[in-house]
């Protein structure tokens, strides 16, 4: 795989990607259990790619927004997204050495853990087990990892230069 040098990430790209992820979440889907958690996916992406720019604070705030928008317990998504961001930042140097398929495996583990934290919190608060179908969404989310990577890195790619004398 040819490594290409990317332009620095812009704050506007990050903000727009989070807004689009939230809008995707709020679309009236027919069965929500099989819809991947786009916000978690985008948080994982930026925490792995730009751990200096997106961190636990952003993840926590987005979690609060998700809790309110879904009428879930306030703090449930905030907790799971904070843990997700922490692990993604810790793994960020390691994950990028792998190819895209193995990166997706890492992300699958992250998203499953995120869902498991939510599940644990709700079971502690007295909810019934909603069925194993809730773990389908995170796996589908991991399948979307190559797509998300291609889309979100697009603004950072330089146009291909035909000039042979350019050093990099």
């Amino acid at each position, binding site marked *: 795989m040819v490594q290409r040098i990317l332009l620095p990430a812009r704050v506007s790209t990050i903000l727009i990607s989070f807004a689009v992820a939230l809008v995707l979440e709020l679309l009236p889907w027919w069965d929500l259990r099989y819809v991947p958690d786009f916000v978690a996916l985008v948080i994982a992406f930026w925490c792995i790619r730009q751990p200096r720019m997106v961190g636990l604070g952003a993840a926590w705030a987005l979690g609060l927004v998700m809790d309110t928008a879904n*009428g879930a317990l*306030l703090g449930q998504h905030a907790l799971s997204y904070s843990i997700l961001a922490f692990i993604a930042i810790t793994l960020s140097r390691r994950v990028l050495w792998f190819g895209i398929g193995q990166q997706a495996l890492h992300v699958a583990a992250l998203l499953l853990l995120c869902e498991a934290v939510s599940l644990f919190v*709700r079971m502690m608060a007295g909810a*019934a087990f909603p069925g194993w179908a809730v773990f389908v969404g995170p796996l589908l989310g991991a399948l979307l990892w190559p797509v998300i990577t291609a889309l979100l890195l697009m603004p950072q790619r330089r146009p291909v230069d035909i000039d042979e004398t350019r050093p990099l």
Partner: protein
Amino acid sequence: MEHSPPPFFKRGPAPLVRLVFFASLSVTLLVLDARFRYVDGLRSIVAFVTYPLQRAALAPVELAASVAEYFTSQSALREQNTQLKSRLLAAQYDLQRSESGAADAIRMRRLMSAAETLERRKTPAEIVYASRDPFSQKVFVDKGQTQGVLPGSPVVDDTGVVGQVTRVHPMIAEVTLLTDKDQAIPVQVLRNGLRAVAFGGGTAGTLELRFMAANAEIQNGDRLVTSGIDGVYPAGLAVGTVLKIERDAAQSFARILCEPVAGIARGRHVLLLSPDSNLPPLPTEAGSGNERRDAPRRNRRKD
């Protein structure tokens, strides 16, 4: 001489410290929300901030609907118009009959000096999106505090009861569906007037009549309507039909499953009824002994 590290290396607290901070903040919020419900103000503020995003999410759906509308053929429209006219005629006939009946009922209630039932305010609303929370059955409608929606209002559609408004944000309100595990509704069997309470069955999309004696007089296909004794739901609204009855000699209660009659998972248009305001005050929690912890919040209303 002291040298401070160049700003290049300053990264703030370590990630683990931040994780501990944010996790404990989340857990505090969780406990405050689950046990004491102190954080509804914060929730409303966040909901107000995210409202534009929610409208944006609705835009493609509305666009698709308007495009589909644009391409509807004239014959289809005419057919729909004829159908609606015939339905309106039938509804008008029913209305005339029920009006005279209602006048009779008011006269009778006056004779018996019973409390008069008030006309409720109706607010039409549209379901914006369903909650992504797999643990509860909730939808969000596009009317909120600014339109005068009150928590506790019953929500109905054209066929029957859908649920109840549980939280009200400035522009949007959260409706807990009848099928939610924590939602209960007092019902009555239409055939013989037997009273019961229907509880939501969770993701299965059914209702369950709990605490009905194994020999209770109830059959498959019995229709259930609201009994109105809780003062929240008006009496006589359709709730569901009995689907399956399991009578087990080993248990003293029958297991009765019902199917909700309203388009709980399908419809888009609902009607929010204002809660009945001329009720005696609810008994205080101290006097009511061993009731469920979260029961008061369902029936609580702001007077």
